[in-house]
Every structure is written in C-alpha cells, then in structure tokens.
C-alpha cells in the first residue's frame, strides 16, 4: 500500500479514541469497546494497543511479535482497511477534526478472541500448493554436493513474490475469498507462481494440476485489492494473472519451462589466485612438500 509520507510524520491529536471490536469466546458476545489513549509523535496502532493493554484494560488480546513489519502476525482492520498494526501510524488514521480509530479483527478469518484470528485455513491452503523447491534428483536435494545455477534475470522474475510475510491482509481484502470457501486466496496463488517461476524448481506440472481445479486460479477476477493492501508490495494480483496465462498455455500443451542445471560450486571451478609479483619464491622449496612435511615440534607438544 502506498504510504502517505506527510501524514506519517505528522503529530497525532493529543488523545485519540479507539473503538476496538471485541469478541468473548466463552459467551460469544461481540461488542465495541472505547478507549481514550494519550498519543505521542511516532505512535503506531500497535503501540496504542500495547498501551491500552498495560494501562487501561489487561483483558484486551491481540497478536504481535516483531513490532517492525517482519513477522506478519499483527494484521488488523484499521478504519475499514486491512493493515499491519505495527506499520500504521496513529497520525495517519486520526485527524484533529475526527480523533477516532476503529480497530477490528481481520475480515474473512475466523476470530478466536478480540483481535486474534485463526490462520489454520490460511496455512493449510498455503501448504496445498507445495511451497518448496522440488527436484527429480532426490539425493542431490537432500544432500547437495553441487549448486543450482540461476542468473540475476531469472531471480528477478520471482524475487518480488518471495517477500511475502504471510500476514493474511490480501485474503482479508479479497472479494472472492470473502464468499468462496474453496478459493485458495491471493497469498497461496502468488506463492504458487513464485515456485513455478523459479528456475530451480522441476515439479511445476504437479503444482499446475493442483491449481487447475474448480475454485483455484480461475476464480480470480482481478479486483487487485490484494496488491493494494499488501504491506510488502508482493503484488499477488499480477502473480495470479501470470499464473493463469501459464495454466492456459499448459492446457494447450504450449508451456515450456526453463529448468536450471546443477553446477559445481564456484570455488571448485575457480583458478587459484596468483601470487603478487613482489613475492619472491625461495628456490628448491616446494609449497606442497612443505605442507606434507611433519613439523619440527609435534602438535600435541605445542598444545601443552
């Protein structure tokens, strides 16, 4: 999501009213609770939630870990937009004329308590597309002796999609995911494309068969909301369109994939670095022999 730099660096209003949508799993009650929070410059939504938890209401629950947009566990809906709580400034959402912020749990997920959502289905769908590199040569994959060659151009084909932190914001904003329980969701499909576009991967056909089912790729209709809300600029919408045209080519038997070869590691192939010209070579002394010779003082003596 493009960041409004002016709004981010502004000072937020003195006190901001937080409306938090809460859910009690024991009684099933859903209600909005209001908290008044004193703010400071640079305060994020997560900071505010932590302040509420430590100073006002200890029963408020939410999930977070890194506090810097890396772990992807703090996704919430802020003023109707799915956001990372730790990456959203209070100043961005609350203005002096309307010092209010609504915080809800993520849309399209199952809520366990207050702002905590259940990601089981999300990870299950991610697992379904086999998010790892698969090679035919099992021995080489498990105990590698060689390296896979890949050019920087080939890397740039999928690098952007590999930045996903699995925060689930894209699924929360997707209009198809909202109603279709079978749809894999933008995150899983973007990751499927990430592995199909990776030249090191050989089992693209396996993945394409999985994606050719009812309710997978074809359900996407390019509303592009996923790309709009993604905090890591993963651009799932573009990945899914590319995936779909690959699938059509695959159906018409036109799809060919370039798979990279295994090559020996760089160090093996490289020539030894030549000695600098000023280095003098002592005659009658060969370096190889010197290494083989036993040292004058035995090593175990040296250790003592």
């Amino acid at each position: 999501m493009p960041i409004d730099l002016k709004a981010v660096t502004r000072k937020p209003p003195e006190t901001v009213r937080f409306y938090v949508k809460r859910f009690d799993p024991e009684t099933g009650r859903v209600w909005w609770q209001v908290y008044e929070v004193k703010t400071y410059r640079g305060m994020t939504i997560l900071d505010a939630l932590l302040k509420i938890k430590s100073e006002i209401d200890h029963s408020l629950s939410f999930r977070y870990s890194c506090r810097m947009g890396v772990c992807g566990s703090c996704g919430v809906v802020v003023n109707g937009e799915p956001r990372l709580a730790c990456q959203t400034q209070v100043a961005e959402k609350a203005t002096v004329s309307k010092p209010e912020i609504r915080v809800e749990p993520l849309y399209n997920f199952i809520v366990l308590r207050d702002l905590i959502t259940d990601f089981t289905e999300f990870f299950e769908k991610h697992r379904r597309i086999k998010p790892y590199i698969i090679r035919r040569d099992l021995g080489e994959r498990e105990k590698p002796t060689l390296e896979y060659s890949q050019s920087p151009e080939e890397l740039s084909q999928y690098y952007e999609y590999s930045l996903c932190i699995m925060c689930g914001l894209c699924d929360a904003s997707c209009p198809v995911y909202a109603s279709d329980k079978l749809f894999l969701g933008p995150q899983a499909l973007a990751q499927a494309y990430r592995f199909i576009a990776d030249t090191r991967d050989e089992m693209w056909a396996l993945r394409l068969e999985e994606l050719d089912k009812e309710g997978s790729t074809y359900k996407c209709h390019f509303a592009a909301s996923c790309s709009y809300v993604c905090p890591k600029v993963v651009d799932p919408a573009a990945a899914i369109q590319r995936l779909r045209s690959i699938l059509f080519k695959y159906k018409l038997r036109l799809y060919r994939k370039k798979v990279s070869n295994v090559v020996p590691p760089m160090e093996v192939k490289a020539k030894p670095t030549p000695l600098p010209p000023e280095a003098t070579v002592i005659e009658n002394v060969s370096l190889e022999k010197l290494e083989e010779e036993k040292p004058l003082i035995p090593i175990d003596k040296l250790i003592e």
Partner: protein
Amino acid sequence: MTIKSRFKVLDNRLGVKASFLPIGVTIAGNPERLAFILHRITGIILVGFIAAHIISTNTLAREGWEAWIEEVRNLEGLNPISLLFIIAMGALSFHSINGIRLIMVEFLSLWIGRPEKPKPPYDPPSLKSFQRKAIYATFILALIAWVAIIYVMLIW
C-alpha cells in the same frame, strides 16, 4: 473435548456483500475493485437482456412479421421497455470495453508491468502500469459509447 466445542468462534467472512461493495479498500486507491463490481453487475444485467432478446426475436419465427413490427414499435421514444433497453446498452458498453482490458490482463497477462524490486514509494507494479490508465479510459469510452447508442436510438 476439542477447543472448538468448548469455545465459540466468530466467522468474520464478509460473504456476498464484498462482491458488490468496496469493503476493505478505497475506490480512489483501487479503481480495479470498482471495475470488478461493475463488471459483475453489468454481467448479470446482460444475461437477463440476452435471454429477453433471444425470446423476443423468436416472435418473427413464431408469429410472423406482423407481430414483430408491433414489438419493434416498443423501442420508439421513451417508455419502460426502451428504458430497459437503454440500461442494457449501457451495461453492454461497459462490459465489453472493460472486457477488452480483462482479456489483455487476465488471458494474456499483459499491461501489468514486470516484477521489480520494491522501492519507495512502494507502488505495486500492476497498479501503476498501463492497466491502470486503461481503467480510466474504460470508464470514459464506455460513457461515450453509451451516449452514442442513445443518440442513434432516440434522436437520429
């Protein structure tokens, strides 16, 4: 006893309403969502129109030309039936022009930029490439086409 049976959970799925309302995004930042919603609504209108059109043109095989001339008269001037026809034409012009964009984007995966390394101001490539301009062009062209059809129908 599983956790699910002991505690209640809340299903936060938005359901069908997300297909018709831009929930979770702003239209200004994400006009693709508006195009998606309009494409759905115009599609539903058009299926109704196609069915009505096929059944009404069947008159000339079923009842002959006299009845057909009677039916065509309904489209003269402004009346409920020609109004419905005009709405269908508006739906048609949007659905087809937006359809051209969708064929390019979804079928051929063109107009969505190339993958790049994220850099400030962090706009995703697919939202700043030609496809975005094509959306604004779609809205304008669809309006022009609709006005042209209404002009030929009613004023010519």
